[in-house]
């Protein structure tokens, strides 16, 4: 365990953490930080205006006006009400926001919406054909590859992408290829079974 009395942290005496002296909008102001960040770049006093962003999601092109900071995930969830793509960590560490961009699985939380223009986006809402579920969706139900359901859209988007990736045939290969999608409920064995069911059926068909 740590020695609590190190020099660079103030010990027993009462101390005052300084307020930042930065100007508003300065690009290096840290949340309630006691340390004034030096060497800040020139302040951007007026934030850049919202920008037009055209996204093609599940075959439909939608024109939005967005803050440039908007991620693809927040554009989907907050602006387009396509809430199937989930925000689990917002830092690329859980896979709940997995969507297909140009047919490849990517993380919508680390993708700026403005950078996803002119490329087809597929989300979980775009997987079924009418009332007919994608075989992977059906396999997840059949194998009970889900519990709370929050990671499920990301799992399924990963699993569908995996079908076109060089993933080995063994269960261990699927486990590795599906490890970018965290499931806290622990549906992993059933997810592997669902993926293998679809791969087997695809190979047969």
């Amino acid at each position: 365990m740590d020695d609590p009395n190190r020099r660079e942290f103030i010990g027993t005496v009462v101390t005052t953490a300084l307020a930042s002296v930065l100007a508003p909008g300065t690009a290096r102001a840290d949340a309630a930080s006691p340390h004034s960040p030096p060497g800040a770049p020139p302040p951007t006093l007026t934030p850049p205006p919202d920008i037009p962003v055209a996204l093609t999601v599940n075959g439909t092109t939608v024109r939005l006006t967005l803050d440039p900071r908007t991620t693809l995930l927040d554009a989907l969830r907050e602006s387009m009400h396509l809430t199937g793509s989930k925000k689990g960590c917002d830092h690329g560490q859980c896979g709940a926001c997995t969507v297909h961009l140009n047919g490849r699985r990517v993380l919508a939380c680390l993708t700026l919406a403005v950078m996803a223009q002119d490329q087809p986006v597929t989300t979980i809402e775009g997987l079924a054909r009418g009332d007919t579920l994608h075989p992977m969706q059906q396999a997840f139900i059949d194998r009970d590859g889900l519990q709370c359901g929050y990671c499920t859209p990301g799992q399924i988007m990963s699993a569908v992408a995996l079908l076109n990736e060089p993933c080995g045939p063994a269960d261990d290969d699927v486990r590795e290829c599906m490890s970018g999608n965290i499931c806290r409920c622990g549906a992993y064995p059933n997810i592997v079974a669902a993926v293998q069911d679809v791969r087997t059926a695809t190979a047969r068909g």
Partner: protein
Amino acid sequence: MIGDPVSRVDGRLKVTGAARYSAEWPIDNLAYGVIVQSTVAKGMITAFDTEHARSSPGVVAVYTADNAPALPDKGRAAMKPPAGRELSLLQDRAVRYNGEPIGLVVAEKFEQATHAASLVRAQYESHTPLIDMQSALPSAYPYKPNINGSFPPATQRGDLAAGLAAADARIDATFTAPIETHNSMEPHNTIAQWDGDQLTLYDSTQFVYGVKRFIAKIFGIPEANVRVISHFTGGAFGSKGAPWSHVVLAAMAARALNRPVKVVLTRKQMFGLVGARPHTVQHLKLGARKDGTLTAMEHRSISSTSSFEEWVEPVTLATRLMYACSNQQTAHELVRLDVGTPTFNRGPGESSGIFALESAMDELAVKLAMDPIELRLRNYAERDPESGLEWSSKSLRQCYSLGAERFGWSRRRAEPRSVRDGDAFVGIGMSSATYPARRAPASALARLMPDGMIVVQAATHELGTGTYTIMTQIAADALGVPIERVRFELGDTRLPENPISAGSLTAQSTGTAVHLAAVALHDKIAAMRGDVTTIVSARDLVTRGGGQPIEARADAKPGDEQKAFSMHSFGAIFAEVRVDASLGTVKLSRMLGAYGVGRILNPKTARSQMIGGMIYGLGMTLTEDTLLDARTGRYLNADLAEYLVPVNADIPEIDVMFMDERDPQTNPLGTKGIGEIGCVGVTAAIANAVYNATGVRVRDLPITLDKILGHTSFAD
């Protein structure tokens, strides 16, 4: 019907993205709230600087202790743990842990609110915090109130000293576990919307009625004015059992601004603000005769809590009933740290306590040169040794024997390091598991609708546990209709009241209410000489009755049987590990859980739930460790890249066995609840397997490679 492996009735909603979690309700004119957190662990805020945040584009309001609406009794009106927590509601300037909410920024857009929150500045008069559990141990003090309101904090039976003196073999060991953070995949979130004096909360919770009561008290408004909706909760594991600060802050801001406000915690904010399994330091003493008979057991637990709330991890409860031993002492102590308040986490109490007890039992078996299962059978408790009551049901003996047989226990070599496969030592271990079978009052309404559908309502919760599915099955079973004819509705305080979905309560409590309501509806229809078996006949019946739904309500509550029997689930966990002989990495290669948990309503979802519990236990065993900086109290690995929950590649085949058990006492359905026990015993089973593989006994969770690599008895 009941007992059929029915696929989840909400499966389609979940696999298409159509299931609506609370942050996903489309609400007009929604504003986004982002919590500002302290950057010191202990002290007072001397000044806020919110000017830059206020003038940031899109910002609607910035709340701090300087200007936040005053709440009755300074926000403590509902404080009655665990249902109502001491929260951080901007009512004063005290800072009690690092990362504590000290402000809320509300803006038109999420991006604007997030940025503006980073511009709020605070000045502190700060004090040196107490963070480190080991250095805080001398300050431990006995926990005095009853645990969970009903269990004495300390127990004594027989004569411990005499029992230890009479022993041929003794174990005296200390087991530690770090703070374990739940990390449900869905972050905590709330949308608060006022319509005049009526408040609607869309909240990710395990307890809609609990939130309703708490919020009403906090704001000093009638309970009738608060509605809480939660149709899907994206995992909880105990962390959404009580409302935390963000719920109140969202409602506070929404009221002040007269517009709906959404607050979603960041992943980082899920460390500290919303509870965690506390640190535990457990001292175990066991004494036994040569034949394995336990002569003495002492279990003292010290767990961490916050500086502002006494929350105790009920660690030793399982020890009191697990084995027939006449000399025993148990006790709970607390250490106050400058961290967030802990809370229930999957298998609360038992997950930590059984780790120590069943590791110590393994050590005792080694010392006695006995088979670990044989040692447990030698001390098998035929009735509850603490209360003297009969068990309502107990199949632990079968769990041991059938589990051992299926797992291949007889092939185990007792001598560590005696099985080698390539680069790895292979070992197997086992543990017992137990969790109380509890029940609480619950109500349900069953209605035959004009369209011939049967709608059953109960304000319970879907956390991934399969509630929608099993309640549908229970109702359909009682009414003799296919499940497609039943629609179950939950998660809304307009529906009949139900208890918290925690502590394995739901199947027992709500399940019974749903069963009784459906039976009552069935009887009512029968009295009308009606027939609901086809949709046409059902429609006719409603039409004949005047077109109004035909309904029946049931209010179910536990009775005297609760006092006449000791009610618990039991299980036996078997684990096989491969420990790299050079690198010390531990790979779980097989696991089996054999359970006697009462009647299984749906073997498909039940199996999933047990597997999920075991995987949760695997994380607790091998990787999870909430790291704090001992000097500042900052939560360091507060994300999913450094706080390591299991990923798919960590998980081998996991086998689940359910004993054929239908408890005659717990409730009319014979269930005992299965949500918690899956996590219990996994840790000891794996730790014991690691010992069997390597000869290294790790008593300090998590079992990371450095603890094996650095061990003197471990060398390639």
